[in-house]
């Protein structure tokens, strides 16, 4: 052995037996800058006891001459070099075999960096430590050392907006990492943000390359139902280690900010129509067809993927039973609080409270929107009247009078007042029997003088007990001739529409055909 260079030797106590792993770690001390596996060992001494050999090897190049030149054969010492000292006489023998290069995560060229020696000439120790007094206090290079030159936008290793691909290769190319090593890759702080999962799509090739350092196609396909058709996902490539790691882990579907709007469930149509691809990231067709049974949105739904067997399930939306939410339909979504912890479904109200009362104008203006989720039979469920018991509250028959007078809802939308109301009032003994009767209208003695005003204010309610003939008894030429018309009444309009109606009061005997 060349003692001047002293690059190969032994600690003389037989403790430096190099194994394949030791060799890899020794190499890693140089090449695993920022590599997570090495990062875990940061601050520790490399297995090879460099300091014990400090006096034997004045220069790093004594053993690692090829690193600076790119010559793999001379990057690490050979076993013969060790035996020059570890020959059993000068020092105990050691076993050593130069390992084959391992494909790690690092994208790093020692020859290129070797040309950038600092002013002190400490080419290796710039990154790997070493001081004037302890020249071979070697440790793995720290990623922060890279940032000193490769500043770009990085505030720290694993910081936001890092361009990971500057120093790292894609995970699929790092075939030397084991499954456990992949599992141990550190998670950047940005990934812990609450809104990260909802808005993590890389928008530039540089960002996509950063994702590829730790992720493979299976990482995305765990949740994204359209993974197989997205170029940015397909570009990641497949990886068995990642597939093994995500197998069995539930898909996570956070709720984007716009989805949290109170009326998103109703108004998402235009957004979906204009950007189906965005929906397809999380939604397969069953997400939509849990509500959309009508034809109104079928063209958009058809552009969504179907969930593939063994692939992402897509957001599982399910209607809440109406009886549990008496006011409106509800729809749960699956939130993301962590990858594994199941959380309670988020209830999303499809229609605002009281929509059953207020839906008229919207339904009339845009029946196409209604048809997205409802078949027309849904309308007749209520509007057909007498076999729908969900619309009114349970004791409605006892409280309906106030709602009827105030027209809280239009009774005639679902009931025929002539028949439905009066027949019930008749059976109850409440309806008029054609003559002045006992003590109704709270027995107000002057009711006869008040009834005209009451009738003009609530004629629909009057008609639920009184037949037309009740009024004609007084308000007709064959009765008492009392004029029921108000000051704004235009007889000619009525006559133009239906003169028969006039004749009922003015010429003919009431009831005569």
């Amino acid at each position: 052995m060349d003692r001047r260079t002293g690059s190969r030797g032994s600690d003389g106590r037989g403790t430096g037996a190099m194994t394949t792993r030791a060799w890899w770690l020794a190499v890693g001390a140089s090449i695993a800058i920022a590599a997570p596996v090495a990062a875990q060992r940061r601050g520790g001494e490399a297995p090879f006891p460099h300091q014990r050999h400090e006096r034997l090897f004045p220069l790093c190049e004594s053993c690692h001459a090829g690193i600076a030149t790119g010559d793999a054969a001379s990057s690490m010492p050979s076993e013969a070099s060790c035996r020059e000292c570890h020959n059993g006489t000068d020092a105990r023998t050691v076993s050593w075999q130069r390992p084959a290069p391992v494909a790690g995560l690092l994208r790093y060229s020692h020859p290129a960096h070797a040309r950038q020696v600092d002013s002190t000439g400490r080419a290796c120790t710039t990154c790997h430590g070493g001081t004037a007094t302890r020249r071979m206090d070697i440790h793995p290079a720290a990623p922060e050392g890279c940032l000193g030159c490769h500043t770009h936008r990085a505030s720290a290793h694993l910081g936001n907006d890092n361009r990971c691909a500057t120093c790292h290769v894609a995970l699929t190319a790092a075939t030397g990492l084991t499954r456990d090593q992949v599992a141990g890759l550190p998670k950047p702080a940005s990934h812990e943000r609450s809104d990260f999962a909802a808005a993590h799509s890389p928008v530039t090739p540089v960002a996509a390359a950063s994702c590829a350092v730790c992720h493979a196609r299976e990482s995305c396909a765990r949740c994204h139902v359209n993974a197989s058709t997205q170029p940015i996902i397909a570009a990641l490539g497949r990886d068995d280690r990642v597939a093994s790691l995500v197998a069995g882990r539930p898909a996570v579907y956070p709720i984007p900010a716009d989805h949290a709007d109170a009326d998103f469930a109703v108004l998402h149509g235009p957004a979906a129509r204009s950007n189906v691809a965005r929906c397809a990231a999380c939604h397969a067709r069953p997400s939509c067809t849990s509500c959309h049974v009508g034809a109104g949105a079928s063209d958009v739904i058809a552009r969504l993927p179907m969930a593939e067997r063994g692939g992402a399930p897509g957001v599982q939306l399910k209607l809440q039973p109406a009886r549990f939410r008496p006011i409106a339909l509800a729809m749960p979504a699956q939130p993301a609080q962590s990858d594994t912890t199941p959380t309670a479904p988020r209830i999303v109200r499809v229609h605002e409270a009281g929509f059953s009362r207020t839906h008229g104008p919207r339904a009339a203006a845009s029946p196409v929107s209604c048809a997205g989720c409802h078949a027309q039979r849904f309308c007749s469920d209520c509007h057909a009247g007498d076999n729908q018991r969900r619309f009114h509250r349970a004791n409605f028959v006892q409280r309906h009078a106030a709602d009827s007078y105030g027209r809280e809802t239009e009774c005639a939308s679902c009931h025929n007042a002539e028949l439905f109301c009066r027949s019930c009032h008749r059976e109850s003994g409440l309806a008029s029997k054609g003559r002045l009767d006992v003590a109704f209208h709270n027995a107000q003695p002057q009711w006869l003088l008040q009834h005209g005003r009451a009738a003009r204010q609530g004629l629909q309610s009057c008609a639920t007990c009184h037949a037309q003939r009740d009024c004609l008894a007084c308000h007709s030429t064959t009765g008492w001739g009392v004029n029921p018309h108000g000051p704004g009444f235009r007889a000619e309009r009525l006559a133009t529409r239906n003169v028969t109606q006039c004749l009922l009061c003015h010429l003919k005997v009431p009831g005569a055909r």
Partner: protein
Amino acid sequence: MIARLHGFSGLRHLATAAALGLAWSPVVGAQGVRITGTSSMQGVDLRPLVEDSVPVGQTTGTGAFRTMADGRLVRCVGDEPYCRFRSSGDRAMATPVVQDLRAVAWGFGQGISLQAHVRARGALGDSPSWPRSDDAFDAIEAWLEVDRGGVRTRLGRQWATGGLGVHNYDGASVLVRRGRARLEAFGGRSLVVGLNDPVTGAELGAIDDLPPDEDGWLLGLTAGAPLGTRGVASATWQRVIRADRGALYSERVAADASVRLMGASIDGSLAWDLGERQFNDALLRVSRPVARSTSMSLEARRHRPFFDAWTIWGAFSPVAFDELRATVGWRSADARWSVDARGARREYDDTDEGLESMPLESGGWRAGAGAEWIPRDQWLVYADYDIDIGFGASLNDMVAGARWMPDESRYLGIAASGLQHIYEFRVGTGRVTGLRVEGGTRLGTDVRLVADGAFYRHKLTQGAPSPDWSQRRFSLRLEWTVGRDPGAATGAGRVP
């Protein structure tokens, strides 16, 4: 039990029709048939008012209205020795039974489908009559549809739906769609809204002493178009004329629009009676989230009742009222709490009737609040309170209850209610308290049974005549589905 059914010949027709339909569909090659049935039965204690009398000597007071010893009001006419009054008669339980059948069949050819909704009614035993229980059979809808290339044609009994509400008719409709725009023309024999019978039908004749003597024919047009990307609008014109073209039963137009603007939903509607040349309805509603968990709406409306021109009611110059309403709702971030409050004020137009010395309420107001709480995923606790003070009828009303749903197939609920009638024209002031239990279970994927029972106690606090609403109630409802919609996994659990 079948033997005790009366008025139920319709059910036999119904069963026959359903069986024929099922047998017939495969024959003509339908790809699919979906039939939904709803069988419901109610039991309601009734004590209808019956006429009674009391000797004049057992009443106090003078004049036409006097009082009995127990405070009830009676009417004494002239020199009659007896005064009349009405009181609740014997208790009897009404047991209406309703059977609904819906059938949809499709796949006869491109875009061709059949739809029908029929209903049979009856009652068990010799129970008191229930509204329409003597109308044994009712065809609510039944149409053939051909939907191809943006044109949809329907033929049969169907509904015109739009800004004028729903109007059923026997006839045809053609709907043309171009993008989000649409134009529909429809026409046929007009049916009475909510009755599914022509105006000359026996059902109307049995209850109305002056029904029209000629059928009506309906003509209508509806057009709708988007308002840019933020809204949509539609207009409807509808006319019903006598079959002999000798008169007009009604002619109205409506316009509706819904727009999203600056985060708000703005809905507006107008209904105009061309015959009376007056608005029946004018409404503007603005609703908007005011914070992440809070939403608010304001609504202004004007309402004037509409009457078909075959009645005399329109000649009595009914007046309109204006109403302003506000609602505010809040939901917690985890959706376990929700609270809403509402209030409204309405004012009637001048009636030019009555005496200043005998004023009548010319307006009214209402207010209310409700809350829902989901302490656990299986539980819902709710409470509502409403007060409505106004013309005609006023009340205080509150209800509180809880529902438990251990899984998606079962639920159980209980609710207590209290109702105070403050003032009414027709029935007396009183209080009603009640307790109700309800439950439901899914017996199979497409079969569900729902039942409820309630007890109400009614206490009159004034002597005006009113039926005693102290009563027991129950209902049973069996819902089932055979077949499925195109592309649907099952027929159950979906928005119909």
